C-alpha cells in the first residue's frame, strides 16, 4: 500500500514534469488560426499557385502572408455569403490586419532566405508538407491520433542533411559552403 502511494506520487510528479517540458520546449505544431483558412480548398481544390498569395517568396527572405486586400480581391465577389468570409470582410472593413498564428517559426539567429530556396527549385511542399490536403496547416503527420513524424522538424541536422545530400537533386551539387555556420546563422 505504501509503495502504491509512492508510485502514484512519482507518476504525478513526472507527468507534470513532462507536461511542462513539452509546453516549454516544443511549439504547438498545428495552431488554431483566427480564421479557419483552408489550404485544401484554395491550393487543393482550386489549384491556386502558392506564389499567388505568398508574393514575396521569390524575391525576399520572407515568403509573406497574403495581405488582406489580396484576400478581398477575390472574396469581395466569391462566397460573400459564408460567415467565415464575413469575418474576413469585417477585418477588412475595420481596417485591421488578421493576426495569423505562425506555424513555421525559426529562431532569430537563423537566416533562412525563401528566395534562394525557391530559386534553387526546392518545391514548397518539401518543407511545408502537402498543404494542398491540409485544412489547417500543421507540422505533424498524425495516424490514430498519435503524431508519429513531423513534416519538418526545423532542426539543424535536418537542414544540413538537405544541404549535403538532397541538394544534389535540385542543383546537382551539394550547397556551396552549405555546412558553413554563417551561411545560415547570423
Amino acid at each position, binding site marked *: 500500500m505504501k509503495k502504491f502511494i509512492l508510485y502514484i506520487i512519482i507518476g504525478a510528479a513526472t507527468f507534470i514534469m513532462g507536461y511542462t517540458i513539452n509546453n516549454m520546449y516544443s511549439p504547438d505544431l498545428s495552431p488554431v488560426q483566427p480564421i479557419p483558412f483552408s489550404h485544401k480548398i484554395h491550393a487543393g481544390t482550386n489549384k491556386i499557385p502558392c506564389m499567388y498569395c505568398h508574393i514575396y517568396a521569390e524575391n525576399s527572405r520572407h515568403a509573406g502572408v497574403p495581405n488582406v486586400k489580396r484576400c478581398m480581391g477575390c472574396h469581395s465577389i466569391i462566397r460573400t455569403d459564408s460567415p467565415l468570409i464575413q469575418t474576413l470582410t469585417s477585418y477588412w472593413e475595420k481596417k485591421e490586419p488578421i493576426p495569423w498564428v505562425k506555424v513555421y517559426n525559426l*529562431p*532569430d539567429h537563423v537566416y533562412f532566405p525563401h528566395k534562394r530556396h525557391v530559386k534553387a527549385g526546392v518545391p514548397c511542399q518539401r518543407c511545408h508538407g502537402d498543404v494542398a490536403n491540409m485544412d489547417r496547416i500543421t507540422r505533424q503527420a498524425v495516424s490514430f491520433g498519435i503524431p508519429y513524424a513531423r513534416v519538418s522538424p526545423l532542426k539543424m541536422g535536418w537542414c544540413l542533411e538537405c544541404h549535403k545530400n538532397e541538394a544534389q537533386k535540385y542543383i546537382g551539387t551539394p550547397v556551396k*559552403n552549405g555546412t558553413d555556420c554563417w551561411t545560415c546563422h*547570423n
Partner: protein
Amino acid sequence: MAGFLERITERLNIYREPGWYKKFDHKWTMVIDLDKCNGCGACVLACYAENNIPVVGKEDCDKSRAFSWLRIERYVEGEYPDVKVKFIPVMCQHCGKAPCETGCPVYATYHNQDGLNVQVYNRCVGTFTCATYCPYDVRRFNWRTYKFEQPLDNQLNPDVTVREMGVMEKCTFCIQRIRVAKDKAKDEGREVQDGEIQPACVQSCPTGAMTFGDLQDPSSKVAKLAKSPRRYRLLEELNTDPSVIYLKRVMNDGAGTHEE
C-alpha cells in the same frame, strides 16, 4: 561506421598539411591609411548603427565594457609644446592564423570560406577563451542583457541578430553586407565586383582612409594598396597573419619608425 571511416581516409589526404585553407573563395581585406585617418570617429558610430551594438551606459563604460566593435586608439608622445598624437582604428583583424579560433572549445569561432574569422553567437557558451587569446582586445562580451529603450529598438538592423546575454561578439567585416552583395551577384549570375561591398565603417569614413576588398583578386583596389611600401600589420611579430593592413602614418617622430 564504414562510411565514417572512408570519410576520414578521403579527407586525410586533404587536411593533413597545415594551411590547406588558402584555397578560400575570397580573402576579404581592409586597408587603413593612417596618414588619411584623422580619428574623427564616424566609423565607430557607423559600426554602432549597422550592427545593433547596444549602448551600455556610464557605469559599464567605466568598467571598460564599452561595446564598440571598432575603436580608435590614440597614442600621445612627447610633452608640451612638441606633442605628437597618433590615431589608429582597431577592429577585429580577421587573422589568418587566429589565436581565438584554436581556443574555442565549441567551434563558436572559426574561419569561414571567405577567409573571415567569424563568431557564431548562438553556439557560444562564453568561456572567454577567444577574448583572452586575442592579442588585439577586439572581442566584446554581453555582460548582461542590454535592452534598447523603446522606441529606439525600431532602428535595429533586421539583417543582424541582437546578441543575447552571455555570448561573445566582435567585428564581422559587416558579413551581412557581404551576404547581400553575394546574393545580388548570384541573382545576376556574376561574381562580386571590387568595391561592391563596403562595411559600414569603410562606407562612412569621411577622409576615405579605409578600403575594403578581396585580396585574392589581383586587380582589386586593396591588392594594389597592399603593395604599398608603407604597409604594415598590427603586432605582426605575433604571426597572426591579420587581414587588416595599415599604411604607415607620415610624421616626424622618433618612435615607431624603425623598419622590421
